[in-house]
């Protein structure tokens, strides 16, 4: 794989001439802008960048980015992206999916692209609802969600995207939300990670699930409800007056008060992005008693699938000649003579 050449672009260079067709006020606009703002900072080359999506509101994303784009079928984007990456590992692939596309119809493919560790950024826009089909409960909808398909309230337990990703073997898990100013930083970290980087982006569906994330995403009091994680930094929030510590008796996380900034005395954990056990606890941390864990929760790269495929093909081809004529005449053969004919 060649080292990517950094290209100078501006946000404008990443805008297409297509009319954006999301509902006015949709969180997708903010995510689109965050991505368009991030790509120039990465030095990304539009000609080498591919956005691949499935079906749903989020999956219209590729039409609005001036790069290569493939709007595929419901749930299958990871499989298309895997094929494209194996055919050309140099492509910089971004996958765009949603909670329905990625965790319901496409849950299987999402699992496998993560466990195989195909190098790409996977953005799952989680709005906890089916938007494009007019508001049915989705696999991430909270229990009791009233929708056209669940008029009395849903009763199935929601899937947890980041936990699903970690369980599937993802080596990078990031979290952000549509209007957060930190989202580009999460995207940049995901891009820097070589392998499948999973980013759960909470996204506000203003028509069918309005403000469902306001409990932690609303600007007012955000400090108290958001834990922005940074590698090597203590897990502090609420203006550094609170932190996350490990209760050594129950082996679970707890919120502790930090006085006079002495977080060490309070036992606050320093975030180590390579610690899978802590990542698991942060992902499972119930919102309410705890803040919402955001930022880079886990980042511990390992060799990618496409590198393994290339390596295997190289090894398998070593010392072998790609001679089709010889291949066709392989095995136990016999010659019928008559007029002389050279064996091919």
């Amino acid at each position, binding site marked *: 794989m060649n080292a990517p050449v950094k290209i100078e672009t501006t946000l404008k260079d990443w805008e*297409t001439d*297509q009319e954006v067709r999301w509902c006015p006020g949709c969180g997708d606009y903010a995510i689109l802008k965050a991505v368009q703002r991030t790509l120039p900072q990465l030095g990304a080359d*539009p*000609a*080498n960048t*591919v956005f*691949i999506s499935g079906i749903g509101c989020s999956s219209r994303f*590729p*039409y609005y980015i*001036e*790069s*290569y*784009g*493939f*709007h*595929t*079928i*419901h749930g*299958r984007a*990871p*499989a*298309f*992206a*895997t*094929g*494209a*990456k*194996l*055919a*050309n590992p*140099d*492509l910089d692939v971004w996958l765009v999916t949603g909670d329905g596309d990625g965790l319901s119809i496409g849950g*299987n*493919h999402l*699992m*496998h692209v993560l466990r195989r560790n195909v190098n790409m950024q996977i953005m799952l826009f989680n709005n906890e609802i089916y938007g494009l089909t007019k508001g049915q409960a989705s696999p991430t909808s909270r229990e009791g969600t009233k929708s056209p398909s669940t008029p009395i309230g849903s009763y199935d337990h929601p899937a947890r995207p980041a936990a699903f990703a970690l369980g599937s073997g993802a080596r990078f898990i990031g979290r952000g939300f549509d209007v957060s100013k930190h989202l580009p930083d999460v995207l940049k970290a995901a891009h820097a990670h070589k392998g499948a980087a999973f980013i759960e982006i909470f996204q506000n569906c203003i028509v069918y699930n309005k403000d469902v994330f306001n409990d932690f995403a609303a600007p007012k009091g955000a400090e108290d409800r958001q834990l922005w994680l940074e590698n090597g930094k203590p897990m502090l929030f609420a203006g550094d007056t609170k932190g996350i510590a490990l209760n050594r008796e129950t082996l679970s996380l707890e919120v502790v008060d930090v006085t006079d900034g002495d977080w060490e005395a309070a036992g606050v954990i320093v975030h180590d992005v390579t610690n899978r056990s802590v990542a698991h606890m942060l992902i499972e941390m119930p919102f309410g008693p705890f803040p919402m864990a955001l930022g880079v929760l886990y980042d511990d790269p390992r060799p990618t699938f496409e590198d393994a*495929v290339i390596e295997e*093909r190289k090894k*398998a*081809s070593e010392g072998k*000649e*790609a001679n*089709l*004529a010889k*291949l*066709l*005449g*392989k*095995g*136990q*053969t*016999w*010659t*019928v*003579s*008559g*007029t002389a*004919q050279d*064996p*091919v």
Partner: protein
Amino acid sequence: MATAAPSDADRPHSGLPASPEAVVVRFAGDSGDGMQLTGGQFTLSTALAGNDLATFPDFPAEIRAPQGTLFGVSAFQINFGSREINTAGDAPDVLVAMNPAALKVNIAALKPGGLIIADTGAFTKRNLDKAHYDANPLEDGSLAKFDVLAFDISEKTIEAVKPFGLGNKDALRSKNMWTLGLALWMFDRPRDPIHDWLKAKFKSKPDIADANIAALDAGHAYGETAELAGPLKQVHIDPTPSAPGLYRTVTGAEAVSLGLVAGAQLAELPMFFGGYPITPASAILHHLARLKEFGVTTFQAEDEIAAICAAIGASYAGQLGVTSSSGPGIALKTEAIGLGIMTELPLVIVNSQRGGPSTGLPTKTEQSDLYQAVYGRNGDAPMPVIAARSPSDAFEVAIEACRIATQYMTPVMLLTDGYIANAAEPWKVPNPADFEPFPAQFLTEPRGEELLPYKRDEKGARPWIKPGTPGMMHRIGGIEKHELTGNIDYSPDNHQRMTDLRKAKVDNIAVPDQDVCLGETSGKLAVVGWGSTYGPIHRAVDNCRANGMDVSHIHVRHIWPMPKNLGDLLRGFDHVLVPEMNTGQFKTVLRDQFLVDAQPLTKTSGQPFQIAELEREIGKFFDDIPGNEGGQVPANDQQLPSTDGGAK
């Protein structure tokens, strides 16, 4: 086979003639007895002896069905001769039965007067019970109309391998080699290639190799001795006259794999193969997985859907995407095929058809996915479909599929079936240089002022633009798109035009004119086939013509679009009979496309057509031929009667 060999009446209980034109042998045993291996090696030795041949492996879906049971019987039939062989043969001349169940399942097929070779060592009370025999058929006279050669193969094998210190259980594993040795002697075949093969196969276990060789040699020696005693005769079959050249045996799965590699080379593209395990298509994945040095990437996906989607993703990125499956898997791939049609990307989809619907008969053959191939998608989604007629034909057909896919920017479905996939036949090794290359073209800069990813060429194909190409960024997807820019466009006129353009592109694919492979180009009866019915139709038509019937054989490779002259050709015949292994699917397509009165002749028993049953049906059209019973030309759709006497 049916007519060329001496008629049954000539040789009741006389065994095989010393020098027949063709012989049919069926090896049958328990699925653990290694009958497929025995058959495969016998095939190889037969090919090396220069005989034309056709094989029919017939095995259960279960890997190791309970030992000794009727449903656990595995069989391998081979028809070989000194003349051209078209099918694996209607009825065996020789049946090798390794246990009572194998005898019970296969005895009905054996020719009267045919030879049974049975292992008495396996005809125990327990095995007889499992096969539902009340009495031992080898002893109760029920096999009186056959020649029976029964002896204790098990014991003789144990004896032969005794010096190698194997336990009885391990020793008995060489039973198939003992049997193969006897068969090699019977048909005057050299043992050396099998010795070499055994040594290579058991390279790391020389003891096992030696034991198997000893068993093989002992079987061979037994033949020599038994001949002296009388009941067994050696049979010699002359080599088949064939065109000079280098030959090998090839199965359909091998030929498809090799054809795909050749097709990718002719298109000057690396190949990406996305597959998921399914019977009987997996063999293609297995073959290609070992051909990485040819620029082949194989990807075993998480499911059938991912397999095709990854292949489309690879085509999008500039490789030749290929996927392969069988009916149920193709059903799962259907939505993605639609996307391939909509985004107009090259893709080859191989369907090794099997008995359906649903899981159906995984290891048995059928041609019942024709509607699925031609019509089975949502929306107006035209797709080229081509069919291989024999294992070796699959090579050329695979190349043709690659050509159409890359030249016309479209998914193409290649139909084979369980019979073609597994059956082997001799193949004159082609020279790749004889095939016209069709290098794929990628668009690297706009053709005019503006980039128009859907602007078509004179063939109606849109340009192929690889991501990674500077200045050519664009978006594609499954939503209806503008006829030039490819941007989303739902407008009524545009959808009408795009539907028309997609249809016209496929309709106008250049396919060769239909030829008549046997007989005149007009006349009383055309027998029209497609796919693996080629062999039996060809032989049956040949035999009927020899009996003075005005019948021609037309075999269609291009199922969709069809050759332009096919309608006129069919209208030149008084009758059109379409034998196929389904309930009349191709017949419907022919009627629909050409308004011809195509009459179906159908069979869905999971078994290929027999030559005799086709001759009988063809004969019904000819009252005036001496010696032919003639009969009523069927007025309506007819299906061959069920072979087991079940409900009709």
